[in-house]
């Protein structure tokens, strides 16, 4: 994504003379003091010369030795000029003004910052914890909090017989787990009083909630009057963990965030790091990445289709899509070695070369798959039940997209052409032809149509990639000449220099230059962005993950108001969140 140009950013000084502009690569951040930040954001949003209407992300960084300690970072996007900008400010007195009145999408992001750093937001409507439970006493992302938490509860394994020596080396002391009362307090904090007849809890462990999302509905009869969502039932602390490991070691964690589209997440992450480290990726690796990303996109959309149809009562589709998914998983297993969380990408390329015959298998799949899409469409697209339950439900307008920072298929279903593959082409996306399907109304049915068409487009991309890869047979797949890139296994075993390099990189990490970068990729669930702050060490100082599903889910309570409970299942299915990514 092109960022705002330096000259254009300098012009803002006419209105706000106190801003400082920092630049790393093409990323431009404006720094301003706290009392002016809201005016600046408002100006950026409303001025026709800039019109940064779309909210992308908000996060905080902790600098314990600095006073004030916390820095807030806003990232905005201008759909008109197709450019990004970052705004930074220091949180004096550990508090910041809320911007929920400018962008509704900031509500959860601010809650998260409160949960993780303990920063107060003046004027936030209900500042409660986002992921942890209400009575949790710590703020985990602060630098002085240990990553394994405070182990103060005696919680031994029940599998060990009483009084015996433990069969393995483990710590019987554990971090505190909440009681059911704590969870009740959490729920009460979210929905302080019921306004309608009855409060219904849906989830967190319910087959229809796609993981562990916890919904609270305030019901009048069957109609939802009010809705709240509690997240954090899969909050594993990936952001905290990654502050303690090298850049390469973060890659497996990106798999486990959005586990349905692991390769896309990998690619988004390695692209961000490569931008930070200035690594040029070999041609062949770029094409392999693009091909696998699109395969994974089909895979992910198939899972969505299967479970979505299953939620609506069509079990057949579930079995059909999983039949196809197995084929794709086999292809990925053949190439990467693992079915689901493949960790196939490396900084500077891919882990292994394509095995022999991989392209033939993919070719066969491309030939076979269109008939399968047709099969699904024959069953669903004009199915009367399908139409009745999907059409007109959950209409998202264009303003909502900008307001809530909605990305991915959900944005495109509402007719907003926001696709990182087109706006900021990484890898080989600038060399392939494809179309971006757009919806017209923005309801669940549109999102269904868009995803179906996207699968076709992905096939087109894969076709072009296979053709290109057949020409690039003997090229390099890993830029091992670069000092930051791990050598291949073969090189490590056969040359002493490569071995030393391997050792250094694995032990001390990639000594990235000081700087900060925000870069994103197009996940099947929306824009997956990585904001990396590097302090010149072998590990990231702060790694913020901007999750598409997190922001997309935020509009759910708005859309479900006035609809019935049965619609909640459909709406949730069509927004398609993955809890691993929303909670991280």
């Amino acid at each position, binding site marked *: 994504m092109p960022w705002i140009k330096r000259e254009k950013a300098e012009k803002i000084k006419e209105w706000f003379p106190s801003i400082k502009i920092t630049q790393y690569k093409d990323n431009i951040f404006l720094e301003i003091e706290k009392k002016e930040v809201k005016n600046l954001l408002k100006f950026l949003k409303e001025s026709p010369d800039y019109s940064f209407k779309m909210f992308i992300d908000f996060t905080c960084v902790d600098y314990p030795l600095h006073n004030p300690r916390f820095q807030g970072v806003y990232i905005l996007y201008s759909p008109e000029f197709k450019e990004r900008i970052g705004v930074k400010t220091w949180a004096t007195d550990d508090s910041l003004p809320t911007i929920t009145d400018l962008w509704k999408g900031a509500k959860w992001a601010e809650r998260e910052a409160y949960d993780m750093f303990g920063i107060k937001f003046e004027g936030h409507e209900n500042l409660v914890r986002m992921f942890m439970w209400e009575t949790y006493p*710590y703020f985990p992302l602060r630098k002085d909090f240990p990553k394994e938490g405070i182990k103060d509860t005696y919680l031994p394994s029940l599998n060990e017989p009483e009084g015996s*020596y433990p069969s393995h080396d483990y710590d019987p002391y554990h971090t505190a787990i909440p009681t059911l009362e704590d*969870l009740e307090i959490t729920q009460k904090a979210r929905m302080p009083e019921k306004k309608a007849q009855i409060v219904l809890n849906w989830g967190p*462990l319910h087959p229809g909630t796609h993981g562990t999302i916890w919904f609270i509905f305030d019901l009048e009869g069957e109609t939802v009057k009010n809705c709240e969502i509690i997240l954090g039932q*899969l*909050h*594993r602390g990936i952001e*905290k963990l990654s502050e303690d490991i090298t850049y390469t070691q973060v890659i497996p964690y990106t798999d486990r965030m959005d586990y349905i589209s692991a390769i896309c997440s990998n690619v988004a992450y390695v692209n961000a790091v490569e931008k930070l480290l200035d690594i040029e990726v070999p041609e062949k690796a770029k094409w392999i990445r693009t091909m696998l990303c699109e395969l994974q996109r089909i895979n992910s959309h198939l899972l969505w289709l299967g479970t979505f149809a299953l939620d609506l009562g069509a079990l057949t589709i579930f079995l059909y899509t999983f039949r196809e998914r197995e084929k794709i998983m086999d292809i990925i297993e053949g190439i990467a070695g693992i079915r689901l969380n493949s960790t196939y990408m490396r900084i500077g390329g891919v882990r292994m070369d394509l095995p022999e015959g991989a392209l033939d298998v993919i070719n066969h799949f491309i030939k076979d798959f269109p008939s399968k899409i047709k099969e699904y469409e024959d069953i669903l697209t004009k199915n009367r039940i399908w139409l009745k339950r999907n059409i007109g439900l959950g209409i998202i307008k264009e303003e909502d997209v900008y307001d809530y920072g909605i990305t991915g298929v959900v944005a495109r279903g509402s007719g907003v052409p926001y696709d990182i593959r087109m706006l900021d082409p990484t890898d080989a996306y600038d060399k392939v032809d494809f179309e971006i399907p757009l919806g017209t109304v923005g309801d669940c049915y549109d999102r269904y149509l868009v995803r179906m068409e996207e699968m076709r487009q992905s096939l087109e991309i894969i076709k072009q990639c296979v053709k290109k890869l057949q020409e690039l047979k003997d090229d390099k797949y890993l830029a091992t000449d670069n000092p930051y890139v791990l050598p291949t296994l073969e090189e490590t075993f056969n040359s002493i220099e490569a071995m030393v390099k391997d050792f250094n990189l694995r032990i001390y990490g990639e000594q990235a230059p000081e700087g900060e970068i925000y870069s994103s990729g197009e996940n099947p669930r929306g824009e997956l962005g990585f904001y990396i702050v590097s302090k010149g060490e072998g590990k990231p100082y702060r790694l913020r993950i901007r999750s598409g599903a997190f922001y997309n889910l935020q509009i759910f309570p708005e859309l479900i108001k006035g609809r019935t409970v049965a619609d909640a299942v459909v709406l949730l299915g069509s927004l398609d969140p993955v809890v691993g990514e929303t909670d991280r």
Partner: protein
Amino acid sequence: MAIIGGNNGIILTTVEEVLSWGRRNSLWPVSIGLACCAIEMMHTAASRFDTDRMGIIFRGSPRQSDVLIVAGTVVNKVAPMLKLIYDQMPDPKWVISMGGCSSGGGPFPTYSTLQGIDRIIPVDVYVPGCPPTPQALLWGIHQLQKKIKAKQEGKELKEIPVRTPKASFPVKG
């Protein structure tokens, strides 16, 4: 079980044996998917591996099931809920821990993750992997069936012998 007189259709058995036979051949798990492992659990239930042919039918309610397959990361916040679900299951009940996360925290040694579900509920079978393949989960289920059978026959499934240190020798410098 003993069949008497070749083909004339009389089977002698005990009530215990019939119960055990029935239990191990119709294991109904609660379908509780928590994270990545749940996807592989779904694959085990879907078209290719098709657990239905083994009498394994995923149920939505803990009251109808006898196996709890914990597939995915259990974070501290979910731990009390998981315990609640386990308590709601009727006896006899078994627990399969699928994947590294539920077995011991997996790749997440963090402030928010439960380091092994055996701290809140007893586990019968551990299936290693991250995620375990569907084949591995099937192996786990077979292992559980063996365990149920062994229990009925009065033997426990052989366990890894635990060696305990005898006495400690204080070393004086």
